């Protein structure tokens, strides 16, 4: 009984406390760089698309709002033919960023994506691709992968030996 009265009193005293609300459009809150907002596709240090179309982001997406089709250029370099995110379904969980093996897909601290038409929330690759490396600097997947996709020849990678000469007979 007393505790009830006490809580009423404590709540009453809150009348004289400062309000916590940030009045959003007039005041902007600080968002840290790792805030999970709008999704972008980044480029590698050479300025080429980082995405290799591995489908892991699409697979891990709990609302299945990522769809893409992988294709290859004449050097055998994989890239997405199209890459579509339906932001009207996105829950900004960031699992795609976690799953991405090439650091291509990244979430940035921008959440102001309001639209009057849901259709405008469907972002294609052209809308997603940015001209920078985002949070991860200096990584180029094709330099460390085993395949030759026109970025480095077989055996030219930092952790690779020269291709085996299968005709040599030395033990």
């Amino acid at each position: 009984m007393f505790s009830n009265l006490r809580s009423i009193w404590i709540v009453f005293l809150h009348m004289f406390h400062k309000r916590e609300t940030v009045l959003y459009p007039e005041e902007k809150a600080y968002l840290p760089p790792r805030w999970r907002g709008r999704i972008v596709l980044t480029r590698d240090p050479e300025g080429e698309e980082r995405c290799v179309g591995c489908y892991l982001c699409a697979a891990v997406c709990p609302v299945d709002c990522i769809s893409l089709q992988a294709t290859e250029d004449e050097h055998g370099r994989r890239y997405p033919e199209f890459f579509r995110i339906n932001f009207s379904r996105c829950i900004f969980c960031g699992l795609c960023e976690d799953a991405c093996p090439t650091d291509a897909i990244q979430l940035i601290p921008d959440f102001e994506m309001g639209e009057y038409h849901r259709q405008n929330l469907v972002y294609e690759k052209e809308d997603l691709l940015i001209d920078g490396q985002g949070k991860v600097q200096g990584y180029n997947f094709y330099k460390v992968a085993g395949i030759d996709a026109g970025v480095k020849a077989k055996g030219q990678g930092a952790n690779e030996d020269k291709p085996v000469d299968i005709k040599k007979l030395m033990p």
Partner: protein
Amino acid sequence: MIENLEYIGMVLAIMLALVLIAAGLIWLERRMLALWQDRYGPNRVGPFGVLQVTADMIKIFFKEDWIPRFADKKVFVVAPAIVMITILLSFAIVPFSPSIGVVDLNIGILFFLAMSSLGAYSVVLAGWASNNKYSLLGAMRGSAQMISYEVFMGLSLMGVVILTGSFNMRDIVLAQRGVWFVIPQFVGFIIFFIAGIAEAHRLPFDIPEAESELVAGYHSEYSGMKFGMFFVGEYLGITLISALITTLFFGGWLGFHFLPPIVWFLIKMFGFILVFILLRASLPRLRYDQLMSLGWKILLPLSLVNILITGAIVLYLNNR
């Protein structure tokens, strides 16, 4: 003839004022809750957000007035009207000031108790007609709660009646010119206050519409203006209970002369409305069995003891 017109005018004005107050309470409650929770509440529509209610009303009027296929249509439509009508009728006996008031009934309190009993039908019928298990559960709880709490709500007022010797509301107000009944009838006041909250099914006694358990209780299936009637009905209920507490225990319109009586009445009434809101902001909901045991095991005996003691004292003083 002119008197009659004036009278009808006054009645209509009271009704309009009440509905407006009830609607305004929606805004007031949201603002006050926000204040006590260190927020702002609605502050975008109009100055201080007062037009929020207008916006809400426009929205609620334009919403589809949908009746579920599986509902009992006639009863479903009638139920929300009952709550509005009974509560508005109850206001008939409230003396807002010496000159303002609908009717001066000599059985004022009994009329109020009768009307509030009828209010239970609204809950039961709404729940039943919705043909939905959550609605029905809410209605069952609501009817049990209202019937239980009515018993000692009436009993708690008997102390006031004994002291006044009349059921007439104006008599009761005039009888408090010396001392407000809240002093001699403190126990009665507390019991009536608790019963009033339960009667208006407000937090912490909003068990019939407990949204965390029952979706929205008896009005789960209601939308549009029918829902709006339940909603406004609830706020009218708060206003009614506050007005009655003011009248029965806090001297009604009585006050110092620098303000007109109606203002005193409104100040007191709004004070209690704010207490209602404060309770909502601070207390958690009771469990159903706690509610029932509180009513039957504590408040009912307490109110009976209150009548006994009041009666004994009055008898003793009168016979001395």
